[in-house]
């Protein structure tokens, strides 16, 4: 063993000595042999010849000797690399095209994979993340989708179970306004229970973290900053500890900063400031989230005790559940609701990777994109394979010479593969840079004004291993075929010069043909995918959404934190609305509680006195409260009856405007103007509220563009049951909406300087709801285009190569009187065969594969014939374009030149 290592090391590091010793030893042997022959009476020259013959090729012997020496692997690897670099350097154009396309392919794969890694696979940077579970409540009626949102009462029931949990904590994200009036300055807050940091095992970097003594009812409150926020907003000054921070206009002392690297348990978000759960009472006032038993605002994680198996945990939670829900029963629910509530159970899900809303929204798109970039890489591989194939055939002579000099076939193949892996490694290296840039871009792309996505994009070892693996894999993939082919040379024909007639016939176009056909097939799949996503997106964007999203500025104002008394809310809002209306450039102004496509909804059951009217869950109607100017501002036409006006005050009879779907569903399409419906009273025990329908409004999308427009009822904002402290103004303007902000700010400041304001445009809000669709459409479009380009290059290359090989043949044909037309037919036959084989395979593949996409499409089937036909058309056109140049060259072969060339 020791011997072995020493000898190998010696051969590796004292290569020169070892080589010369080997030479000397063999020369000695040879001379002794000659000497012996001479002694037996043979002339010196004849003796030398005989000895050499006996020897059977000095170089082969040396090579085998080297092989036995054992280091060979490393040694020849270095040799191969040196040689490979030289070869690649000799054709810089081809090499850089190859590296660039590989870099794009590998970079795209790395980028998407690193997103998948960050969003779905990476462990939380806390102590023993594998022990963490998320606790959810399961409704037996919808057993497959347990929900993680829990009430404070449930949290109180769940937190102390030392028999199964070594710790548990609750948390809830929130946004806080850091400003002390004027424009809102948002920060990402998180309410955490006292043992949040302790259970996770997060250490403070300065000061102290929150603990259970901070989280008691009636607590004064304390704030912990995240490391990043402390650096950004406090310049990493230790003096921040002991100073105060204003959150939604409440002042909290800062007690510490959490350790670097910890950004919370929600992947895709980061917290800036954490406050104890008990501070909810400070923000909410009298009836706080702590007491309200149907306020589902908390999520709960627990750390399972070592030794408790998942089954044991499940059994234990099953036993605990009845008691837990009985003790947290919301007293104001009706009898049916209470009965359902008591049947809920608590279940646990592993939470080592944290939780993330991104997984639901982007899990599937990311997997699909992974498939897309995988295909792109395959196409790039195919390109380089045909490139290498062409080059390898051109190197037939070199292979023959090396073989004649004693290289074994395995050695030649290894040399060629080394070159390929060099190429792919260079591609991977460059690809990693592309990927870094790409992931940053992607994250910015999926971030919206309201949902900033924050991800730690540093590549971990998993990503690097992934990249290295695909680099080697791709290198082998595109290297193997050419390597095997090109080393299968017959020595004599190759040495004779040229390619030899025999090999020419064999090489022609065949392997390249299949490579190109598969490229065509894969490109078609990508084009169809891209087409489907693009068309879905276009359908969504051009959808009649029932309102005009352009040139509308949304201004959210909150009166509560500005200290306006409740009885002044209505008057203040109306004052502001009037002032905004008189701003230059403003056409009309509306005000509402909810804005369209905001992602929020307010719904309730509605009863209509009619035998056919929907009941129970079917009778759910979306609500909104709007001012008289709302419809005009959003350009939603009133189809019958009237909209709201000054008649509709807080004390006037309650009225509503309903949309067409509601008319369909509740009134079978008959005009309901003047009729009534009933809504449960806001407080239990009171009689239902009777509301008269005064108008019908055109359908418009409520929460998202993809939804089936829900039945919607609009009420005058003056008649809102609990006067809401927050409202959004809609301003339609002739000028770009963003330009209005400062005028709006001034105008509202004239009413009250303390009112926090939030600005965005309606167009942006609608746009932001399409992030997922836009991401898929843009990226699949981009990669579809890339695939098309690569396939075009591949076809062009393969065809040019085939034409070059057959130049002589074409020359002879022409010399014998063939017309260019017949040459065209010969070449085009090849193209047609390849193209149709590829298209057929691609169409079949698309047909089978696109079913996966169905869920993400909108308004068209996955097997949309128009999309598939268009993709085939585009691909054929591009293929013919790529074929044009080589074909023209084939037709213009000058018989004399072609013949003389040989």
């Amino acid at each position, binding site marked *: 063993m020791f011997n*072995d290592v020493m000898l190998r090391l010696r051969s590796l590091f004292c290569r020169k000595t070892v080589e010369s010793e080997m030479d*000397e030893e063999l020369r000695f042997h040879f001379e002794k*042999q000659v000497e012996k022959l001479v002694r037996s009476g043979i002339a010196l020259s004849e003796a030398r010849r005989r000895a050499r013959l006996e020897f059977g090729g000095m170089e082969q*012997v040396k090579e085998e000797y080297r092989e*036995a020496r*054992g280091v060979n692997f490393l040694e020849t690897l270095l040799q191969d690399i040196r040689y490979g670099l030289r070869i690649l350097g000799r054709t810089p154009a081809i090499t850089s095209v190859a590296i660039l396309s590989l870099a794009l392919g590998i970079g795209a794969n790395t980028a998407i994979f690193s997103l998948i890694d960050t969003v779905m696979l990476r462990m939380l940077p806390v102590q023993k993340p594998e022990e963490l579970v998320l606790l959810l409540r399961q409704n037996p009626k919808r057993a497959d989708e347990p929900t993680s949102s829990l009430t404070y009462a449930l949290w109180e029931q769940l937190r102390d179970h030392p028999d199964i949990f070594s710790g548990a904590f609750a948390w809830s994200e929130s946004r806080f306004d850091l400003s002390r009036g004027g424009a809102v300055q948002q920060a990402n807050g998180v309410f955490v229970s006292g043992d949040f940091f302790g259970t996770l095992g997060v250490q403070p970097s300065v000061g102290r973290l929150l603990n259970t003594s901070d989280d008691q009812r009636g607590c004064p409150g304390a704030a912990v900053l995240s490391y990043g926020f402390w650096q950004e907003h406090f310049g990493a000054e230790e003096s921040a500890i002991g100073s105060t921070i204003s959150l939604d206009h409440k002042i909290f002392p800062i007690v510490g900063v959490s350790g670097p690297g910890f950004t919370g348990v929600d992947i895709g978000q980061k917290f800036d400031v954490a406050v104890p759960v008990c501070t909810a009472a400070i923000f909410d006032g009298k009836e706080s989230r702590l007491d309200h038993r149907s306020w589902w605002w908390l999520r709960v994680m627990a750390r399972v005790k070592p030794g408790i198996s998942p089954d044991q945990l499940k059994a234990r939670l099953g036993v605990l559940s009845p008691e837990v829900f009985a003790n947290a029963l919301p007293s104001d629910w009706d009898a049916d609701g209470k009965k359902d509530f008591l049947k809920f159970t608590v279940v646990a899900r592993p939470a080592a990777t944290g939780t993330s809303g991104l997984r639901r929204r982007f899990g599937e798109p990311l997997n699909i994109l992974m498939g897309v970039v995988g295909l792109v890489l395959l196409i790039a591989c195919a390109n380089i394979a045909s490139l290498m194939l062409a080059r390898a055939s051109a190197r037939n002579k070199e292979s023959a010479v090396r073989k004649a000099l004693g290289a074994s076939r395995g050695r030649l193949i290894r040399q060629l593969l080394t070159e390929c892996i060099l190429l792919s490694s260079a591609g991977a290296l460059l690809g990693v840079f592309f990927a870094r840039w790409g992931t940053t871009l992607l994250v910015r792309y999926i971030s919206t004004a309201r949902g900033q996505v924050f991800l730690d994009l540093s590549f971990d070892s998993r990503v690097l291993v992934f990249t290295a693996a695909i680099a080697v894999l791709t290198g082998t993939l595109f290297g193997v075929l050419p390597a095997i082919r090109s080393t299968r040379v017959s020595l004599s024909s190759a040495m004779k010069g040229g390619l030899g007639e025999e090999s020419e016939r064999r090489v022609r176009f065949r392997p390249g043909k299949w490579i190109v056909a598969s490229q065509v097939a894969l490109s078609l799949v990508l084009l169809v995918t891209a087409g489907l996503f693009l068309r879905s997106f276009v359908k969504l964007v051009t959808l009649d959404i029932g309102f005009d999203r352009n040139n509308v500025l949304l201004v959210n104002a909150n009166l509560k934190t500005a200290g306006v008394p409740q009885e002044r809310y209505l008057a203040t809002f109306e004052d502001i609305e009037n002032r905004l209306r008189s701003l230059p450039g403003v056409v009309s102004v509306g005000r509402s509680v909810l804005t369209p496509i905001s992602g929020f909804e307010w719904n309730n059951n509605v009863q209509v006195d009619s035998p056919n009217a929907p009941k129970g869950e079917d009778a759910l109607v979306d609500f909104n409260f709007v001012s008289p100017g709302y419809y005009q501002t959003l350009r939603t036409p009133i189809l019958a009856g009237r909209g709201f006006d000054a008649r509709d005050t807080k004390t006037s009879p309650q009225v509503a405007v309903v949309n067409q779907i509601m008319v369909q569903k509740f009134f079978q399409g008959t005009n309901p103007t003047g009729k009534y419906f009933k809504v449960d009273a806001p407080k239990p025990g009171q009689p239902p509220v009777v509301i008269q329908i005064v108008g019908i409004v055109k359908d418009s999308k409520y929460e998202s563009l993809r939804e089936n427009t829900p039945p919607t009822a609009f009420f005058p904002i003056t008649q809102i049951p609990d006067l809401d402290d927050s409202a959004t103004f809609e301003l339609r303007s002739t000028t770009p909406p963003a330009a209005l902000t400062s005028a709006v700010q001034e105008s509202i400041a004239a009413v009250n300087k303390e009112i926090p304001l939030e600005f965005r445009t309606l167009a942006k809000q609608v746009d932001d709801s399409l992030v997922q669709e836009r991401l898929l459409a843009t990226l699949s479009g981009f990669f579809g285009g890339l695939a098309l380009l690569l396939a075009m290059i591949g076809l062009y290359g393969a065809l040019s190569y085939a034409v070059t090989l057959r130049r002589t043949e074409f020359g002879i044909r022409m010399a014998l009187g063939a017309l260019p037309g017949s040459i065209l037919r010969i070449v085009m036959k090849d193209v047609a065969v390849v193209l149709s084989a590829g298209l057929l395979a691609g169409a079949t593949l698309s047909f089978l594969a696109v079913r996966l996409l169905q869920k993400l499409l909108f308004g068209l089937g996955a097997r949309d014939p128009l999309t598939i036909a268009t993709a085939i058309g585009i691909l054929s056109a591009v293929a013919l374009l790529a074929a044009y140049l080589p074909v023209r060259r084939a037709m213009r072969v000058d018989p004399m030149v072609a013949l003389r060339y040989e």
Partner: protein
Amino acid sequence: MPEPRVDLPQGTLDLLILRTLALEPQHGWAISERIHQISSKVLFVQQGSLYPALHRLERRGWIKSRWGTSENNRRAKFYELTKLGQKQLELEENTWRKLAAAVAQILETN
């Protein structure tokens, strides 16, 4: 006048080398010569197999090499048996004898 040659069966070269070196340290050429002669010119070791084999044996620690002077004062690489090689030789000899006897027995029974 090519002499009648028999190709060595797989694996026997190592045994022959070890056996040859058991007498005294030798250089490569002498090893092949001795095998050739002792076998009455029936066995002939190709250089292409001899040197890789020597190296293999050296790596296994059965023989070791050193540079010395040949009979006519030339520098040559001499190989000699190690203790480990001695044991290996005995082992292989035994195996070979058993094998040869068994094969002979089978051939002799009709």
